[in-house]
């Protein structure tokens, strides 16, 4: 109960920049919230289904690039059209990649998801007309009547709504019978099968749901920045995202979101401190794995109980 109050308070606090119009906070917290959506969707896979997927960045990128394409090539700006199309594309990609990847189990699953992510990275980086390593601009950002999402506060409000909807949706799904099955699979997949659950099917559905939400994050990112590039699809992105899940505490939904906020802060200020920023991130990741395996949420739970 207290948790819900805290989360609601946090959500309301996040709404503040939309009213203050502060340019820096709008961009910064906008990015942070997008990462929250991204991280929460990955937690569905990692924390609840027990699937460590490195493919998540791929669905982010597919959706983002598709928005750029729809805007630049087809002059589509109505989000009521472009959003469903991009989400569908991400979901279909997740269906295909998920189906193929889930045929491998354990570490092999992880390897395959990484391989497909890299394949897409090379595609976005090398294919002609996609801007190469520089990426693409989104010429016309989503517009719906009086709402122009190129306008920062409007985009921010849209992102905020998306985050709240995502969180409510995921909590719903996880409390439903489907969510229970996922937890059972994570706990003891063999037992679930011998109880009559066709576990591959459930894992695939989780993969698709998570992939679609990753696509949502990608769409919002392209809207906020007006820009897409292949680096968003690389395995570094996937790795950093996994990091937010571990840092925040997997299997809690709110944990990875806290992790996402934290990492956005750290990344932003860290880059200004030193050029050898990667070493610090690397050391930080190692420290978290060794010292805080249950993440921030784990610490909070320990403090409470």
């Amino acid at each position, binding site marked *: 109960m207290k948790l819900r109050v805290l989360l609601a308070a946090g959500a309301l606090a996040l709404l503040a920049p939309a009213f203050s119009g502060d340019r820096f906070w709008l961009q910064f917290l906008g990015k942070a919230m997008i990462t929250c959506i991204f991280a929460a969707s990955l937690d569905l896979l990692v924390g609840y289904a027990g699937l460590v997927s490195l493919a998540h960045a791929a669905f982010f990128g597919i959706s983002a690039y598709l928005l750029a394409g729809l805007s630049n090539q087809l002059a589509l700006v109505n989000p009521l059209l472009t959003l469903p199309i991009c989400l569908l594309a991400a979901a279909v990609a997740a269906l295909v990649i998920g189906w193929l990847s889930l045929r491998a189990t354990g570490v092999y699953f992880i390897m395959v998801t990484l391989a497909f992510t890299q394949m897409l990275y090379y595609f976005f980086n090398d294919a002609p007309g996609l801007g190469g390593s520089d990426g693409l601009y989104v010429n016309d950002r989503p517009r719906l009547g009086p709402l122009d999402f190129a306008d920062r506060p409007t985009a921010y409000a849209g992102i905020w709504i998306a985050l709240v909807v995502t969180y409510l949706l995921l909590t719903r799904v996880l409390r*439903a019978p489907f969510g229970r099955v996922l937890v059972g699979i994570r*706990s*003891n997949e063999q037992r679930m*099968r011998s109880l009559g659950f066709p576990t591959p099917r459930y894992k695939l559905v989780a993969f698709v749901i998570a992939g679609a939400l990753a696509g949502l994050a990608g769409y919002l990112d392209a809207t906020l920045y007006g820009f897409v590039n292949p680096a968003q699809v690389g395995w570094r992105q996937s790795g950093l995202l996994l990091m937010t899940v571990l840092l925040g505490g997997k299997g809690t939904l709110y944990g990875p979101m806290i992790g996402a906020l934290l990492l956005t802060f750290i990344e932003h200020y860290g880059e200004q401190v030193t050029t050898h920023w990667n070493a610090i991130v690397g050391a930080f990741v190692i420290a978290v794995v060794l010292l805080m395996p249950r993440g921030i949420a784990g610490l909070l739970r320990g403090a409470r109980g």
Partner: protein
Amino acid sequence: MAEPVLETRGLTRRFGALAAVDGVSLAFAPGEVHAVIGPNGAGKSTLLAMLAGELRATSGSIRLAGRDVTRFSPDRISRLGVGRSYQTANVFGELTCRDCVWLAAQSRVRSSMSFFWPAERYAEVGVRAARALNACRLADRHTTPARELSYGEQRQLEIGMMLATEPRVLLLDEPLAGLGHDEAKQVIALLQAVRADRTLVLVEHDMEAVFAIADRVTVLASGRVLETGTPGQIRLSPRVREAYLGNEP
């Protein structure tokens, strides 16, 4: 015998050159308690795993109520009414007893591809789960995480989970293994209570238990069926004595 509820014909499983199960043909009658015994390495657990669909047969067939299920996946076989318990307690450690049984019950009552309403809302599942918990005598421990149960209690929970799926056929792999005398008696009583209208295939080492509840006994040795008969017949059989090399049943 009336139409067997479960039967195997020439069932074989090889690991390289070794035949763990070799040409086993057995028929399990509906409603019977059928024990499978034999010295270590006889292939009993392998046979059970094959019946449950967890291990693929190299050759031979398995028929469930006349239907060929040889190549079926474990979940499909489970859905056809076969329950399975393992040699070591195989539960969901982090879940409470109630949630463990809940999951088992949920597998039957409706499709779990249900995303919107909270699971608790499905009252039928709760009823089934409560029934199963009562049957396995763990109703008072229902909020305890499964990993905090004693070994014997985890065995009971396993049986409870199996019961929640309301199987017609129960495959039990050494349900009494590792249990003390009193705990074993509890489990035997439990099995006696649930055997009505069900067929039990019981792999066991505990001879006292086997002879207490089994209608028929099959002895396996080196992957092959040595003999099948009533407990009395098996006890007197010279071939069986020889296979056990002096282990008096």
